[in-house]
């Protein structure tokens, strides 16, 4: 058995012990999100337009993270809309100006070909979305 699979099993068991049913659901959402992220990478690497794919994936991840395991509908709706607003705002405000002005893209010193400019900036966005979901 690899270290990763053992640690994953340990995490799953502990999440169920510590969180009960909700813990189990959280673990499922974790697996779903990981699959989605991996799919996003594959799709982008396959040549699909970066921003639409990323945005779609971000909305899906957001929905999974917020709606799975939360029972209060009003509260989750508010959280979902709030994070979606932040996501769109960040996308409009930060990404285009910063990307064109500061030209932050690609790698610092590694060889690379066909790396789209937006990846890094979107990565930052993911964190932003994710952090807001915790509130």
């Amino acid at each position, binding site marked *: *058995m690899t*270290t*990763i699979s053992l*640690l994953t099993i*340990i995490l799953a068991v502990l999440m169920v012990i510590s969180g009960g049913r909700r813990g189990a659901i959280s673990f499922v959402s974790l697996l779903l999100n990981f699959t989605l992220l991996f799919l996003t990478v594959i799709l982008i690497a396959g040549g699909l337009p970066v921003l639409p794919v990323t945005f779609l994936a971000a909305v899906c991840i957001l929905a999974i993270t917020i709606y799975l395991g939360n029972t209060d509908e009003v509260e989750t709706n508010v959280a979902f809309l709030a994070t979606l607003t932040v996501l769109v705002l960040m996308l409009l405000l930060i990404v285009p100006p910063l990307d064109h002005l500061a030209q932050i893209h*690609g790698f610092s010193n*590694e060889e690379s*070909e*066909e790396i789209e400019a937006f990846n890094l900036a979107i990565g930052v966005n993911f964190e932003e979305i994710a952090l807001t979901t*915790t509130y």
Partner: protein
Amino acid sequence: MLKVKKILLEVAVIFLGGIALYFATSHNAFMYQQPILQVTAVENGKTSVTKDEFSNRDEQTTQRLTGRILNGSSKGEKYTFSNTYTKSGGIDQKFHVGQQLFVNLYHQKGRTSVSVSTYKRDTYFAILVWIMLCLLLLVMKIKGLRALGSVLFNFILFILIVQLDVNWNITSFFAIFACSALIFTALTLVWILGWNKQCLITLEAIVIGTALAFAICIFAMWITNDQGMHYEALDFATQQPKQLFLAASVIGLLGTVMDAATDIVSTLFEMKRRQPQVGFKRLYSSGKQVGKSIMGPLVNVLLLIFFAETFTLAILYFRTGNSIGYTFSWTMSLGLVQSLISGIGITLVIPTASFLAAITLGGRTEK
């Protein structure tokens, strides 16, 4: 009316501050050692299409740049040189008139050649920091600054410790990082919460949670014999990679555990303040309730942060003909293990923090 005036004043300060910063950072070339060149003219050459063995198409263009040096001993001198950029811009970029670049000047047999080192980005960095500062102050008032202060303090401390490690080049540097991580946590908690019971309980919960999670992780690594762990894939590893990886994991683990522990303990303290008669059982179960609701998002945040880091590299791996399994094990496995360790830390700190807070607050009033 007074409120409108105040808002106008705030907006004015934010804008003027931003403009001042922009002006200052675009005229600060004299503060740098490395020569800075301002592009005064650009002449774009022909674009050619390139194709590699994985049939990745790209466009390559060579541009002639003319520019003036802004600082140092060659200040005011003009140079013309060429720069090649690709459309995808992995490690190169297209330059425009007016941009400032860090360059290297090579003097040889009376001739000087110029090579671009990197684009000068301090203006954008400064403005981003400024926007963040303003937002923090607007949203969280003085509390935000306090939090930022602790971040800065920890950052400086961390740099110092890394410097220490580099200078001494000790073989068992893991201990240093573990100890310093503990000191970070204690200092941050005292800084934010003040030296009181709440701070002490949070610290206890963090230490126990972290130690348990780390012990489990070490045990798991030992039992599986590090199978599938590519420590050699670690970036910039100049010292023993496994130790370096573990040191990084402990710091990350501590951060997430701290997040969960402070949430739970502060909620329970607030509860006790509002209802002084509340007992151990209710406190413990509400602590676990809080834990349950923060666990899902927190673990997902860990996943997203780790994934964002490996995103570009993973795409590069896929575009250069690597299989899914290979890409996964070389770009993601280490980060994923770190996230898993932190996740285990969260699940362990939830009961620990709930129990410690509940027994301290409700132990005596239990009927």
